[in-house]
């Protein structure tokens, strides 16, 4: 079996941003994504009360250059004003062509 190395980008963000973030990553080249509702705490305080909305945890498997583009876009337009973090990992998948 051929395992193809790719990047997994995980974004944790306030849930209001869901629609926007999905549009951004698709525009930047992501072919799919998976979202899980989450709660959490960081420099902008606790995010678990209904009123402010919870967080989402969005992950997308992409080639390295798409991963970098996504991070750059987040840094430019989201990190300053919104409760968002993002990180990248190495993953291996079977059907590599599915993600590019």
């Amino acid at each position: 079996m051929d395992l193809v190395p790719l990047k997994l980008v995980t974004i944790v963000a306030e849930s209001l941003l869901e629609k926007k973030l999905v549009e951004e990553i698709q525009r930047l080249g992501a072919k799919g994504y998976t979202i899980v509702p989450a709660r959490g705490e960081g420099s902008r305080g606790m995010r678990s009360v209904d009123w402010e909305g919870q967080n989402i945890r969005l992950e997308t498997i992409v080639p390295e250059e798409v991963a970098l583009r996504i991070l750059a876009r987040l840094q430019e337009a989201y990190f300053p004003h919104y409760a968002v973090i993002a990180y990248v990992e190495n993953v291996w998948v079977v059907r590599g062509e599915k993600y590019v």
Partner: protein
Amino acid sequence: MDALELLRLNLLSPMVLAFALGVAARLLKSDLAFPEALYTALSIYLLFAIGFKGGVELSKTPVVLLLLPALATLFLGLLRPLSGYLLARRFLGVGRADAGALAAHYGSVSAVTFLAALTFAQGVGHRPEGFLPTLVALLEVPGIVLALFLAKRGGGNLGEAFREVLTGKSVVLLLGGLLIGALSGEAGMERVKPFFVDPFYGALTLFLLDLGMVAASRFAALKQVGFRLVLYGTLLPLLHGALGVWVGHLAGLSLGGATVLGAMSASASYIAAPAAVRIALPEANPSLYLTASLAVTFPFNLVLGIPVYHAIAKWIGG
């Protein structure tokens, strides 16, 4: 009934007490918590039911009777964000974005405060006009839009925020319920009354229990934002409340109706406004506007404000 008796009546209603229980649960660090789905389900139910009841009443009201009150409401919807904005700039000394965010909240309306006022007025023995929920829907939108406009003069994607507000779930449920009520009328009402009308106040009681917990979890933020915000969050409602009562009186509302319009005018949104503001004014500080509307103004209106607006209505109208 004298004023004190009325205050007591208000304080000892299951709804106000449930709010207090929620606050207490949070302060005692209880593990009591409503699942998010329950909170959402209750708010869908309450908003749709308010709209629906209003719609059925509307189907029995000649349109002309609605004209003046609707105009009065629109007037309130345009004036209140202005006063909210100015007071925030001058008295709190905050920047444009924060002032706009506060103005959006105090320019819109809180459906739960409306309901508490309605219950109070009915409890006292008044019969507020049946079309009041229509006014809630009317008051919800313009204030937010105007406030965002104030904050953004010139730049930004106002359009998106406007769409966001108009298609926001609270407006869709309120207006949608209203329409359904108006179209299906008494015949429809008969079918669904045991679901949307009879258990309504009990469901509201449960909702207020949750709201109490949410408000209490904001109390800690009060210290950070400071005493001036507490003043802002109580003086502005008093001002808007008196204005609302007076305008309602001029528009020909009954004593009960003027009381309720006063409370609506005094209230600050915490469903539609926060979502719209977060999108359109991300640089505004949520701690400020959420704390003011949820932890100061809402409990203030619930406990003290409503009886005060009633007293004003009596004084003007009597």
